[in-house]
Structure formats: structure tokens, C-alpha cells
């Protein structure tokens, strides 16, 4: 079992938790050492996985999932711990480990109870990594919920502002989503094989059997898509996101907006669309409408907010809406764009939240009306914020451009009027994005200094620089060399497109 490299993505966070458990609460250095070592190992592991994956693909290994392994867990219900990755999951693992790495440094001086903070943080990462390596929907769901619950304590104990309210709201709404999801998954399980066949939770087998009747597909598609859509901040289930992100501590916002919201998009893609292709063809329009609203509404909401975190949270609603929107276009180009957007948004929003945390740590306010001219006082952070902003509004050379261009190119391939209208509306959101990004940049970074106390503030420390540089390098990397990502994921769409096309016939 431990010969499979993927298992280590779950084992290392568990080792991390065990290591933290041995540290004393007061020995900050020991805690940091454990976190740095483990998150570096994770980062190295995911880079190695990526390289090895590309090597295998180049050698012509064309299996849908690589590194597969399956171990019986609950035998009476045929529940396995089944793992396997394709190009998309490899990239998601890479993204998660980058953000866990950056998040560790962004919460260098967390207090109180640093040990407990990192324990829950490690549990959260276990859930995230476990979700991306699973190909058994039961284990996938389990890891999904493992990733949700630590949020309550992370926000409730270490958050700011109305943290109790936000933590409870976020937890209950996401759990509500997972209730629908669970029902959908149960339905998929009980229809996963033709009459008399061995029922299974394994995604690959379910898709091969393709035995779910159309009327069940429609129902289950709604349940699973809404279930994952809640986590993907789909309108009208997005309201947990602004409050939750605004109150969460920096590293948690980073991980949550950067990775956890991607679980929603990934799940919609891997379960709702892949396993229920017929319903996806039929019902995609409902969710195109909803995600279209998310994109535009999120962008407009971001324009009127004055709290930096709220601005970024609403912009996340808009950008994550774009991910789901692109997935629902059901063609390869748009889906490639969706994956690029997941990566791009994950990195960029993590960078945003890291920077906001650093600025807040110095100025003790997140209200853009009370700040100004920060570029003169802390040029390093200012420049980073600019870069994140440009990535967000899609400047060529950064990741946002590549992702959004691909999405809109792909979406435009659907030639009917309905799709056209929504694609054009979604495209307009780029302009609105520019409005709110430039507004923040203008007020916050440029212009006169609003508060003379701010003049004494210092620029970034080494660990903050490390955290931001990692993220910026990745953002520029995607922006300049998108083809590499394209190569990684290109084989992953074939089975999904095949399922969709054969269902459409």
C-alpha cells in the first residue's frame, strides 16, 4: 500500500499532525520546523509526481488514470480506498502543495495556540490531498468532509471580526451542500452497475458501466452539482464565501479560496459531468444561468465593497463561477480553460489573501478608505499586490490571461443563441474586474498617505517574501509557459468528452 506514491500525499500530512502532536505548545521553533519540513517534502513530492507523470505520458502510457491502486475497505458495500491521478489531479496536487507551502510561511507568527492551529491546518490539507488522489466516490466524499470541518475551528478561534457567526455560517452551508452531495452519491452507488452486477463506488468502473437510467441521472445531477456548487460558491449558494473569507486567518483564506473552492469545480467535473453525462447535456443550461449570474454578480459586488477581504472574496465568487461556467460548456477547449482558471485563481487569490493578511498585520485595518499610498511605505508588498491585481484582470504574461482567453474561446464554440448571450455577459465581467482591481490599486497603493501612523510601517520580512515569491513565480510560470500545462492535461478530457458525446446520441 505504501509503495504507491499517491498514498504519501495523505500520509505526510498525517505524519505532520503526529509531529505537531509531539511538539509543545510553547516551542514555536519546533512547530515551525515540522511544518516547513513536511510542506517542503509535499511540494517536492508533487513536483516529482508531475515530472514523472509527464515522463510516463511521453513514453506513451495512455491509461486514463496513472499510479492507480485500490485497497478494500468496507467489503460488504464494496468500498475501496482507491487512488489514481490524471493530468488534472496532478496539477491540483501541485497547486495544493504550493499553497500549503506558502500558507505555512504566511502564518509564521500565528497566535494563540500555534500548535492547535497547525494541527487543524494539517487536517485540512489531508482532506484536500486525499480528495484529489481518490477515485472512489466514498473516499472522495470522506476527504471532502475532512477538509470542511477544520474550517470551523480555524475561523472561529484564529479569525477576526464576526468570526463566530461566519464560522458557523460557512460550516453549516457547506455541510448543507454536502448533504445534497451525499444523497447524489448514494444514488450513483445504487445504480452503478447493471441489474445484478457488482455495485461499485469506483469512478472508472461506474463510468464504464454507464448504467444509470436517464430519469435518475437528471435527479442525481442536480444533487451532485448543487452539492459541489455550494463549495464552488455558485449563486445563490455563495453567501458563506464573503463572510467566511473575511473572517478567516490568512493561511486559511489562502488554502480555502485557493484550493478548497477548487474541490467544488473538480468535483462537478469528475463526478457530476463525467458520471452523469446525459443529464449534463440536458440540464447544463440551468447551471449555466446560475454560474453566469455568479460571474457578473460577484464582479459587481466586488466593485462596491470597501473591505479588502470582501473585495477579494466577491472576486473569487466571480472567478470560481467562471470555472463552473466553463466546465458546463462541455467542450475540450473550455474545460482546459476551466482547469487553467482553477490553477490561476488558486494561486492569485492565495497571493491576494497573503498580501491582505500582511497589510492588515501592519495597518490593523482592511478598509481601503483608511489607507493610501502604501506603495511608498512598503514597496515590496505594493508591487506584489499590483502583480496579483494584474493577474486577476487578465494581463498577458500572467496566468489570468491564459485561463480566461481559453475559457472564452472554448465557450464561443457553442453557437446557439442561449450560449452566446451568456458567454458575452460573462466576457463583460473582465471589464468589471478591471474596475474593481484598479479602484483598489489606486486607493490603496497610490495617492496620498491617509494615515501618518502608516509612515512608520516596515516592508515584508523574509518569510513573507518567501511566501509571496513562490506564488508569483507560479503565476508568471503559468502565464508564460501555458503549453506545459496543456500537455499535462490534454489526455484527461478524452474519456469525459467521449462520455458526453455518446450520451448525446
Amino acid at each position: 500500500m505504501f509503495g504507491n506514491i499517491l498514498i504519501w500525499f495523505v500520509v505526510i500530512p498525517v505524519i505532520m499532525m503526529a509531529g505537531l502532536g509531539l511538539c509543545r505548545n510553547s516551542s514555536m521553533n519546533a512547530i515551525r520546523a515540522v511544518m516547513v519540513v513536511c510542506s517542503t517534502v509535499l511540494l517536492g513530492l508533487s513536483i516529482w509526481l508531475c515530472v514523472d507523470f509527464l515522463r510516463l505520458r511521453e513514453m506513451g502510457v495512455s491509461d486514463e488514470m496513472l499510479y492507480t491502486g485500490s485497497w478494500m475497505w468496507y467489503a460488504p458495500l464494496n468500498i475501496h480506498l482507491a487512488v489514481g491521478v490524471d493530468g488534472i489531479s496532478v496539477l491540483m496536487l501541485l497547486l495544493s502543495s504550493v499553497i500549503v507551502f506558502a500558507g505555512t510561511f504566511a502564518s509564521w507568527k500565528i497566535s494563540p495556540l500555534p500548535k492547535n492551529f497547525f494541527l487543524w491546518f494539517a487536517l485540512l490539507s489531508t482532506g484536500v490531498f486525499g480528495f484529489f488522489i481518490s477515485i472512489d466516490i466514498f473516499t472522495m466524499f470522506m476527504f471532502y468532509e475532512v477538509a470542511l470541518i477544520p474550517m470551523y475551528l480555524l475561523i472561529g478561534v484564529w479569525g477576526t471580526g464576526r468570526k463566530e457567526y461566519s464560522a458557523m455560517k460557512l460550516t453549516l452551508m457547506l455541510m448543507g451542500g454536502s448533504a445534497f452531495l451525499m444523497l447524489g452519491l448514494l444514488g450513483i452507488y445504487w445504480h452503478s452497475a447493471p441489474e445484478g452486477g457488482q455495485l461499485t463506488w469506483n469512478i472508472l468502473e461506474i463510468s464504464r458501466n454507464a448504467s444509470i437510467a436517464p430519469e435518475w441521472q437528471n435527479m442525481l445531477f442536480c444533487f451532485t452539482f448543487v452539492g459541489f456548487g455550494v463549495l464552488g460558491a455558485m449563486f445563490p449558494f455563495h453567501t458563506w464565501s464573503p463572510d467566511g473569507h473575511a473572517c478567516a486567518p490568512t493561511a486559511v483564506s489562502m488554502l480555502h479560496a485557493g484550493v478548497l473552492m477548487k474541490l467544488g469545480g473538480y468535483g462537478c467535473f469528475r463526478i457530476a459531468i463525467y458520471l452523469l453525462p446525459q443529464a449534463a447535456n440536458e440540464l447544463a443550461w440551468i447551471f449555466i444561468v446560475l454560474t453566469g449570474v455568479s460571474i457578473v454578480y460577484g464582479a459587481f459586488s466586488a466593485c462596491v465593497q470597501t473591505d479588502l477581504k470582501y473585495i477579494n472574496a466577491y472576486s473569487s465568487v466571480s472567478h470560481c463561477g467562471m470555472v463552473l461556467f466553463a466546465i458546463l460548456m462541455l467542450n475540450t477547449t473550455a474545460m482546459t480553460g476551466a482547469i487553467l482558471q482553477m490553477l490561476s485563481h488558486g494561486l492569485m487569490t492565495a497571493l491576494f489573501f497573503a498580501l491582505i493578511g500582511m497589510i492588515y498585520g501592519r495597518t490593523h485595518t482592511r478598509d481601503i478608505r483608511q489607507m493610501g499610498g502604501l506603495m511608498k511605505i512598503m514597496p515590496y508588498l505594493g508591487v506584489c499586490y499590483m502583480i496579483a491585481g494584474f493577474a486577476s484582470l487578465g494581463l498577458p504574461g500572467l496566468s489570468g490571461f491564459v485561463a480566461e482567453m481559453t475559457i472564452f474561446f472554448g465557450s464561443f464554440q457553442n453557437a446557439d443563441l442561449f450560449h452566446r448571450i451568456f458567454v458575452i455577459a460573462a466576457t463583460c465581467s473582465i471589464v468589471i474586474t478591471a474596475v474593481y482591481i484598479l479602484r483598489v490599486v489606486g486607493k490603496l497603493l497610490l495617492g496620498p498617505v491617509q494615515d501618518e501612523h502608516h509612515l512608520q510601517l516596515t516592508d515584508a520580512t523574509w518569510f513573507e517574501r518567501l511566501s509571496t515569491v513562490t506564488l508569483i513565480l507560479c503565476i508568471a510560470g503559468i502565464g508564460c509557459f501555458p503549453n506545459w500545462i496543456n500537455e499535462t492535461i490534454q489526455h484527461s478530457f478524452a474519456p469525459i468528452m467521449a462520455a458526453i458525446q455518446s450520451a448525446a446520441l
Partner: protein
Amino acid sequence: MDYSQFGSMIPELIVLGIFMLVFLFDTFSNEKGKKILTPLTTILFALGTVAIWIVPASGEMVFGGMYINDTATNALKAILNVGVFIVFLQSSKWVESDEVAIRKGEFYELILVTLFGMYLMVSARHFLLFIIGLESASLPLAALVAFNKKHYESHEAAIKYIMTAVFSSAVLLAGLSFVYAFSGGSLYFDDIAITIGQGGMSGLLIIALAFVLAGIGFKLSLVPFHLWTADVYQGAPTAITSYLSVISKGAAAFAFFVIFVQCFGAVYSDAWEWMLYGVIILTITVGNLFAVRQKNMKRFMAFSSVSQAGYIMLGAMAADGLGLAGMMFYIFVYVVSNLGAFAVISTIEENTGKLDMDDYNGLHKTNPWLSFAMTLAMFSLAGIPPFAGFFSKILIFTSVTGSGSWALYMLVLIALINTIISLYYYLLVVKAMWISSEEPKIGSFSSACSNRVALWLCIAGIVFFGLVPYIYQYCYDAVRDSLAFLLIF
């Protein structure tokens, strides 16, 4: 009479043996000797539990078909025994307190007698034996509820408990007399099943079923028969409350399954499926909604256990082997999670006398380990992975949806939505302990060794037996091996 038949009643004989030993020791030992009564009973009981786990069930019907000790009943008895063992551990400091120490022998004897009664309930295949078991399980419990002689709440709770117990027995007996009339003069489960299979539905049968459901529903505190629960749980000594909330519930749930599926299985979809459907929805929802408003931890746990009983009964809704296995696993997980919560509550009560949720504010500053344990117990009760509660909930939901009818999917949806409400109030406890910024009201203290062992056992159960499928597999195998006897249809 063939006395060798008693040989197949191994679990009953073990408990009876321990009871006799404790009774004789308690009667004939002097003051000094009484000091070792607690460890003696606990160790004896632990040995007995191990014996029940190990010794395979004979699987034969004895006493003309009145009693059976098959793998499923044996597995359930083993699970109940684990629970009782934990209760013994967590109460061993309380029984040494001044007020109780002089009567501690009684405490153990009464618990063992009720456990014996529950064994009979579980193993009975004849309503007469079932009623004997039920009565010997409930009457001594009333004495236990009144164990805190000097507290008037304890008396009040005992009166409430005995009245409801007697009343529910009367209702149950009324129902059984209808069944007796219906089946043409037999109270054997098998005979009744055959008569009902041939006779089909009738008005009389519906009334009988409603009465039997109500009678057992009182024991399980299903809504609308739950009204005694909160007061009794609050008034009873905490050790008894935890015993009442898990052990007697687990036994009654299993008996419910056997009676309804084995005797009345033929009219499942005609008669009792819809009754149970409504009762489960009510139980889960009402239990949850009332739990939200509770301030006293014991009342809180009372309503939480009402709603948990609803989840346990989902196994009966599935009415097949998978449902029974899921139910037994749920009972096990519920035993460790609930007893974990009660271990914390009773430890805090013994050391500081505090019982309100507000008293738990900021607990992590003074008692980090207790807060940690309580958090795990709450997460497990709420069904959060990777703790055992998640697996038990999902497995039982899976078994319910197996028949594929829409109505059952809707039932699961309602249950799932209810888990969110339950998550809310379980998180309130977590919030009080970890998030509340108030100064802690409970000072640091070091709890007794036995309490700690009990708590560690519960935590081990919560953490391991979800991730490790051993217990579920054990229950499933036990049910599969006994299915020939259990399921007629």
C-alpha cells in the same frame, strides 16, 4: 426438562455468574473487603466481555424456540458489554463518594440485572420471554435513577421513569394481546410471522402494530413517546444517564428490529413502514430542534440522544441484513461517542459540580485534554469524518437507500438535512470550549485514573473504528451468519 439447553445461554450465564459473585461478595465481605468491590466487578466484567467476544454463539434455538443465541445477538451483547464496561470505569469514582459508597454493591447488582434483562430482550423469540426481559431491564433502572437519595430531582426522575415504563409496558401488552388474538393463540415469533404471512392485513393488525410500536418506542424514546427523556436524564445520576442513553437504547433498538422484521415483516410495506417513516422523521427533527435550545448538558445530551435514536431506527427502515449490520455498527459507534461525551460531563461534574453549557466557556485554557476529547465526541456524534460517527451514519444511509424507492431517498435527505441542525448544536459545545473569549469558570483539575481510562477507550473507539472497518465487518458477518434464523421474508 433438558438442562443442557442452558449451555447455549453463555452470555446470560456469564452476566448472571458475575452478578452472583458480586452479590455474595457484597453481602459477606467486611468494610475492608468492600474496598476492592469496584475493581473486582470491573475486572470480572472485562473478563466476561472478552469471553462473550471470543466464545462463538451456538446458533441454536432452545426452550422450544423461545430463546436463541446466534451470532447477531451475541455480537450485539458484546457491543453492549463494551458500553457497560466503560460505564463501570467512568462511574468508579462516583461510587466511592460518601453518599453512594455504602450502596455501591447495589449499583453494580442492579446494572447487571438490567443487563441480563436486556440480553433476554435481544435473544427472545417468544413474546413472553421478551416481556420478562423488558421488565427486568426497566424496573431496576428506576431504582438506579433514584440512586441519589438526597436529591429530589433524582426521585422525581425515578417516578417519571417508572410511570412511563409501566405505562409503556401496559400499551405493549395490550398490543401483544391483539397479536395473540390474531395469531390464533401463539406468541412465538415464528408462528406469528406465518399467520401474518397467510392472513395479510387487517384493522386489528394495524392497531396491534401501533401499540407495539408505541410500547417499544417509549423505551427508545422515539417521538412522540419521548417526553420522559429529558427530565429523567437530567435527574438521574450521570453514570445512570449514560447507561440509560446508550445501553438500554441499543438493546431496545435491536429488539425492535427483530420483532418488526421477523414477526411483522410480511406486512412491512402495508402497515408499519409508513408508521416508522413518520416516527423517524419526527424523532430526528424534534430531538434536534429541542436540543438546540438546551443549556444544561444532561438535557442537551437527552435530546441529542432522542435524535440519535431516530438515526438508529433507520436501520429498521431498511429491514434487511445490511440495515441490521448498519444498525449494530451505529449502536457501537453511538456507545463510544456518547459515553465519551458523558465521560467528560461526569468528570467535570464530579470535580466541580458544574453542568451548564455556559460553564464550559473557555474550557480549553484550563483543561485542554478534556476539551479535546469532548470535541472529538461531538464531531463523532455529528458525523464528521474521519471519526467513527461519519462512517456509521453513511453506512446506515446507504442501507436505507438500497431499496431504491423515492420515499426512502427523501427520508435520507431529511435525515441528512437534520445532521446539519445537529452539527449546529454540537458545534455550540465546541464553540463554548474553544472560541468563547470568557474567562474559564472551571479550574484545572486532574481527573481520576479510571475516568481517564474510560475516556481513552472512547477516543480510541471514535478514532479507530471508523477508519478500521473491523467492527462493521464483525457486525456484518454476524448478521450474515444468522440471517437464516432472523429473516423470514
